[in-house]
């Protein structure tokens, strides 16, 4: 029973803390750029505002347009249920949930791409098309990374992988892990639409991918989209933590252990976030047609990781 509550708590943590993560990143970037920056709570205020605004719907749009954000949001939240955060057990686990997790994220992408096309303008189509490109090229390395870790841990469950990793020595870091981490980092950047693949803050049509897709959205729908986007970022960060640095998760469900776990989790998240902020502030966005090359690097790394599982394992 206790475990069940914890599981719900950690899932809610992922969902509810997501806007905060975004606020922190904005704040960090502002600092690096020597700006004051908005409050870290600003994303919440934003969501609140959007939820209370009237929604404008293009006159050609169908129910797909309005339901897409809802579906995307729901799928992303359910995906959160599979991630271990504080202890190596998630709300939902399944031997093979690494695949289910990725596919749940794909639901959101699928829905949003259709919603974008439903707007009836060329911006939506453009965003949707580019999103398809990025997703198509990012999916294979993502799967390969997960497979590589699954092979090492001999299990296909995220929680089990985390549990296995905890049992390993922190200093006994394998080549596979390094390669996989690098690949996953690239994929995560691409999947969440951050620099250098996409710029979440621009509305310049030549560069935008995700923002082009959501151009027609407003009000509560936009709020849901923003929120799910934030959750997705949070999910991928947590995934990286859970897969590569789960040490600190409490193996037993005790209040102290959980508190320590929360602390270490926050710390690791902070590291990731700082890294992201630094990268986003120092690197320029790639040209659209250079993105495939970027993702090919991820694929190459992931393939290497998989090959190294065979070499290092036996």
């Amino acid at each position, binding site marked *: 029973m206790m475990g069940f509550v914890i599981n719900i708590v950690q899932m809610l943590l992922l969902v509810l803390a997501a806007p905060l993560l975004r606020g922190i990143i904005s704040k960090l970037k502002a600092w690096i750029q020597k700006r004051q920056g908005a409050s870290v709570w600003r994303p919440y205020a934003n969501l609140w505002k959007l939820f209370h605004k009237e929604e404008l719907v293009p006159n*050609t749009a169908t129910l797909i347009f*309005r339901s897409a954000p809802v579906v995307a949001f729901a799928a992303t939240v359910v995906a959160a249920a599979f991630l271990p955060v504080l202890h190596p057990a998630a709300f939902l686990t399944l031997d093979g949930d690494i695949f289910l997790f990725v596919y749940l994220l794909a639901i959101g992408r699928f829905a949003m791409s259709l919603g974008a096309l439903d707007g009836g303008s060329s911006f939506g189509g453009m965003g949707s098309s580019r999103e398809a490109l990025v997703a198509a090229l990012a999916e294979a390395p993502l799967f390969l990374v997960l497979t590589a870790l699954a092979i090492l841990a001999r299990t296909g469950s995220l929680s089990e992988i985390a549990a296995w990793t905890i049992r390993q020595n922190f200093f006994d870091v394998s080549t596979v892990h390094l390669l996989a981490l690098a690949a996953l980092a690239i994929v995560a950047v691409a999947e969440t639409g951050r620099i250098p693949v996409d710029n979440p803050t621009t509305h310049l049509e030549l560069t935008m991918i995700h923002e082009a897709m959501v151009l027609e959205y407003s009000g509560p729908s936009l709020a849901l989209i923003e929120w799910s986007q934030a959750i997705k970022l949070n999910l991928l960060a947590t995934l990286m933590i859970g897969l590569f640095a789960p040490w600190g998760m409490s193996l037993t469900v005790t209040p102290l252990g959980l508190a320590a776990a929360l602390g270490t989790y926050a710390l690791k998240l902070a590291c990731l976030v700082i890294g992201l902020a630094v990268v986003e502030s120092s690197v320029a966005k790639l040209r659209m047609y250079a993105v495939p090359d970027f993702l090919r690097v991820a694929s190459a790394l992931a393939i290497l990781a998989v090959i190294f599982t065979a070499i290092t394992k036996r």
Partner: protein
Amino acid sequence: MIGLLLILFLSSLLFLAVFAGLAGQGRWTRAFVPGFLICSLLLGLGIAGSCFLNGRTINLDYSGHLPFALGLSMDRLSGFFLLLICGLGIPVALFSASYAEHYTRANWKWYWSLVALFILSMVLVVVASTIFAFMVGWELMTLLSAGLILIEGDGEDRRRSLFLYLVMMHAGAAAVFASFLLFVPYAPALTLAAMRAAAGSLPAHLRVVIFLLSFAGFGMKAGLVPLHFWLPKAHGIAPSPVSALMSAVMLKIAIYGFIRLTFDILGTPQIWWGYLIVVVGIVTAVLGILYALAEHTLKRLLAYSSVENIGLIFVALGLALIFEARGLPILAALSLTAALFHTLNHALFKGLLFLGAGAVKHTTGTLDIEELGGLLPRLPGIGISFLIGCAAIAGLPLLNGFVSEWLIFKSLLHGSVLEPDPAVPLLIGAVALTSALACACFVKLYGITFLGRPRSDAAKYVVAAPENMNLALVMIAAACILFGVHPGVALHPLSVLAGTMIPNPTSPPEIASISRMMPLVAAAIALLVIVVLLLRKPASRSVNTWACGLPGLTGRMQYTATSFSKPLRSVFAAVYRPERKMDLEPPDEPYFPVNISYRSVRTTSFEKTLYRPIVDGVVAVARQLRRLHTGNIQTYLLYIFLVILSLLVVLRFA
């Protein structure tokens, strides 16, 4: 008793074929024929269900005075595939009732008569217990589908496609035939049962030959790369309900044949068989979806996507062979279950999509997705069902496609953990790429066809879809959802079936775990959606789409299918080998041309490198032979003379 029912079922189809061919065409007939077909298919469904679920077997022998018995038998495997045929047949019949209405009197008769016979021939293949019956059904299947293709016109292009189809199928049938007949010296009775009994005594090299021939033959029918290029042509030009039958069911009959021969009859495979199949399968899957991505005709796109799915099924089948050869029956059963379930799923969503394409053609008159757009509000029933089909084929959770893909991934993961070499995990990447591309492909298909604004008058002024069509599509869509949300319904009997093919002690644990998980996930998502919908403020205002402040946004300004797939096409340019041709007029004025024409062609390199040389070679030999027939009688006499002389010499000195 159930045997009698089977005969009743077969004869009712035969009766219908004759009746439809001869009857007049009053209103009564028009209602009776589809109705009767549906009823008899329901009967077939009952028989199939009883065999598939309860494991009943049928054994009938009718030898007549043929030198070869025309025996029928059914077990779980036949039952499953019969279920597929009848299950898909019903919505197709329902759909056709409206679809065939615009046919001329003669075509209407031909259509129903041939459809009934086509279904009959497929049934014959899966219930055949002798090689003779199997081959009769197998050949008729091709022939009747070719007849159906001719119903909708016979222009030059269609004839060329049809020719290709017929010839490739015949060559494939020859391979299948040969693989069966290789059993003859060992199995005198020529029944599947005798073959199964004889399989153990076959010499090893013969087993290999049989396997390779059956792989080539059934692979040809299934559309494996590089023998696939007939498929989009044939499936693209058939009447849509027939395309649905061809893609959703007929390809599966090839899977049936392959499973029957390789798993059931031949047994004890070698590991490299599995590797061969897996490699061919994955190449098929990736290339199939890449070609689909570049297609802009609804049905051709769907046909290429069938190629992809067949590739995935073969990947799973190959894995099953590998596991079986390695002595891992549980994993083999898992892979085989995955293959069978994907077979079922592909039948469902591909049937749904082809019927949807038929409805689009019926209501708008075109299949070119560049001309469409905005169909969803005009054809709500079809649009929603089609969306479910697209999501299912893209492998999204909560729909059936996901579950089978998950099972395939899971088998691959097991393989990766067990296999010493890293090739298997790389397959996971390839399958993932395929599925991501499928996602992109069907976003394109659905988004461009059904969403946004109409791109032409054809899409704007749409005839309402008949109720039958809606109903047929909704039926299949419901099945897709059912198997997606509660896959246990199908998975448990399928794993039992897989257990009969591969002797194994227990059902794979994945079957139970995914069957438990999917309803949970579905419930969670449904709950969340409901909560969000309840909380969300319903107020909304309809406005013009934002056009950078300029007036006059038209449907033509939207992204097209070509532009949608452009980024991916340029990434995979090596596969497409596009040939671009730009003509300037006048040619020496690059800056002020009067006329520019631009053409971009994808070359299908398989056709060029594989099919052409063979055909050209044969024709060249034939031309040379033709030159020997000089027309001069003395030359002819000389030939006879030379034959006598050489025989004399041979006789003297041999």
